């Protein structure tokens, strides 16, 4: 690219000499201009800005985890493991006093029996699939900021794992899963939509009937059975969610967009100029569908996070740590009915899932107004 810039004008062929500035610069300028225009529309929507702020906040959380692990949580070894490790870390010596089911404060040594009693009392069916915790049963400790060997700013879970560390790690997991699912979903939906729109006929019918089928099957039960039969890690799960949701409604919307692009004159021009089908689909139709694809990618993140957290909550996933697993642990260990007495078990994780998906949802709603002018005019 850079050599284009320095190339003397005389060397350029006759036709291109008229435009002195290289093509990529023009493209960049156009992009910047349209970006500024769209940003203006986007920024008018307070909800979208709030959503963006939430996403940035979670991004900072995800970045903070490795930094914390390397600095303030470094060197807290106990039994060969770091106490703050989000997956295997367990602080066996919990802070002296812990909260028990009826809200009294007692000695931690008498607690194990009471935890089991609490478990009995709830009368809830405990899912026994998937994750089995082998750590010694400790008690959830309330948040302690200082004065103990290992301070837990947001308390610990029933196994002695640090909640803050798990929460920050969960943000990383959520981003990894959300983006894997959203990108694979959009790739498939764009491919199916553009190909079905461009070729039409038998290919269109086949693809669209497949899409109909995927819309008809409820996604969660299907994914439950898939995760029951196979051990899925975060990336594999993301791809499975992406495939199932990409073949759904998004493909139909992208197809209708591609159909409206297909009948525009420049497609005919490209065909007359001898462009192959593949090139027309990839270079001429796809770029015009991309803004809409990007919008559905945002919605896709919300759906993927919800599905992952639900599956983790049901204890069906073999992944290390996520917000859903944090809620699952609190639930299966019988702390469901203690509510706010042990708020650090459920509230941070549940609020994170809610806020994270709400953030992407709000950004997507605001982007919808940018992409779809009909919604804008009030």
């Amino acid at each position, binding site marked *: 690219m850079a050599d284009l810039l320095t190339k003397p004008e005389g060397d350029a062929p006759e036709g291109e000499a008229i435009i002195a500035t290289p093509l990529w610069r023009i493209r960049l300028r156009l992009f910047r201009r349209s970006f500024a225009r769209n940003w203006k529309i986007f920024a008018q929507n307070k909800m979208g800005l709030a959503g963006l702020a939430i996403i940035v906040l979670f991004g900072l959380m995800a970045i903070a985890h490795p930094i914390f692990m390397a600095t303030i949580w470094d060197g807290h070894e106990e039994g060969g493991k770091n106490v703050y490790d989000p997956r295997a870390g367990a602080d066996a010596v919990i802070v002296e006093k812990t909260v028990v089911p009826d809200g009294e404060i007692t000695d931690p040594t008498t607690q194990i029996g009471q935890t089991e009693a609490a478990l009995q009392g709830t009368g809830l069916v405990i899912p026994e699939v998937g994750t089995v915790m082998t750590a010694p049963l400790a008690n959830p400790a309330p948040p302690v900021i200082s004065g103990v060997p290992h301070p837990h700013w947001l308390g610990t879970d029933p196994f002695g794992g640090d909640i803050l560390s798990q929460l920050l790690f969960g943000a990383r997991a959520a981003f990894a899963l959300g983006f894997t699912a959203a990108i694979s979903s959009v790739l498939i939906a764009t491919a199916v939509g553009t190909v079905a729109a461009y070729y039409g006929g038998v290919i269109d019918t086949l693809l669209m009937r497949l899409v109909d089928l995927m819309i008809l099957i*409820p996604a969660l039960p299907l994914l*439950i*059975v898939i995760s029951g039969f196979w051990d899925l890690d975060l990336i594999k799960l993301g791809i499975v969610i992406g495939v199932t949701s990409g073949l759904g409604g998004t493909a139909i919307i992208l197809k209708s967009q591609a159909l409206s692009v297909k009948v525009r004159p420049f497609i005919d021009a490209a065909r007359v100029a001898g462009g192959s089908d593949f090139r027309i689909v990839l270079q001429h139709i796809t770029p015009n569908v991309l803004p809409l694809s990007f919008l559905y990618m945002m919605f896709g993140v919300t759906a993927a996070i919800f599905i992952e957290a639900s599956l983790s909550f049901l204890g069906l996933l073999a992944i290390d740590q996520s917000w859903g697993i944090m809620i699952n642990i609190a639930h299966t260990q019988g702390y469901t009915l203690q*509510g706010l007495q042990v708020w650090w078990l459920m509230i941070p994780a549940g609020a994170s899932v809610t806020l994270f998906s709400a953030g992407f949802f709000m950004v997507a709603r605001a982007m919808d107004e940018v992409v779809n002018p009909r919604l804008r005019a009030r």
Partner: protein
Amino acid sequence: MWKFIAKRVGQMIVLFYIFLALLFVLLDLQPGDISQQFVGNPDIPPEAKQLMIDQLGLDEPKHIQLFNHLKNYSTFNMGASWSQYPRDVSDILFSALPRTIYLFLTATILAYILGFWTGKIVAWKRNTATEKAVMGTSIFLWTVFYPWFAILMLWFFAAYLDWFPVGKFVTLNFESRPDLVNSISDVLFRTSGSEAASGWTSSAAPGANDVFMLLFTSLIVGTIAFFGIRWIVKRQVKDPTTQARLFTGGTVLVFGGFVLYWITNEYGPWAFDIFWHSVIPVMTLTLVSYAGTTLLTRTSMIETLKEDYILTARAKGVPDVTIRDRHSARNAMLPVTTSLVLALATVIGGGIITEQIFSWPGIGQTYLAALSSEDIPLTMGALALIGILALIAHLVADILYAYLDPRIRVQG
């Protein structure tokens, strides 16, 4: 209209068979195919293994197996469950199905009526404090992480306020009415007296199921009577004042008849117990789908309020309430109705979580329990049933939409 329905039904049947074939492929794609899956599992009764081999024809080629699978499922012959061996899969599923339908039908109808009403008013009063409050609540309820919300509801109403029982289906002990133990267990329940006397158990108690079926049937009859009266009155009576009186009279009649029936019925306390257990799950489900209906109704109403005929109605001096309810809300109903029926299909997915958290022994809990005990026939049967329900919901949505919007009917 009939031609349209016949066409849709035909398409649905084809799709259902494709779905069944997909289930078979899913079953076959498991690590180690079907024939290997269960051979080494000691928990499965040998008779069950033999039954599976016979039914699927596992010693025959794959396409014959697929054909057998499709044939079995179309005759509801889904084999025997492995975890509850002698019981048929279809038997287990059909005893769990009404419980799921009860939960979701109640919640969906409630949410639809309330949500449509709120959405209508909110769209009318744009940019007021009421609108902002309702919108904020709705967006929160719509985006909240559902399992977490359900747990918080359970904690708040069952543990903190202690108003409702914690989860499960029934608690009432038989010993409180010893005279009923013998009659019910002998005549209806097909269980021995000693088992019945130990109280109601959530999953397998046939007694609970019988009382429940009575409650379910009476609820369905009551709902149909209620809407039937409204429909007839709307068609036959032209005068608005008489119409309103007849509406009130009909509502009182149906509700009073329902309550009277259960007060005089000897299963009354049991039915009330089941109802009492269903309050929190129904409330949770209603709140979440209420939010969705409100948001959708509002958007749809705002769009219809921009139409020219609204302006015309205003110009000629039609009262605001009439414009809102007759001119605008009627037209805003179309997308909301479709989403209502489609919500019934997707809600079954969310139902798995609801039933798990509230220990409600419906299809969702059966499905999870079957999956965790590696009961493949039951898992597959439950998934097929969920698929059928989704298909039926889509069919009903299509027909309803064609009924409400004649343009679709004409196009076919």
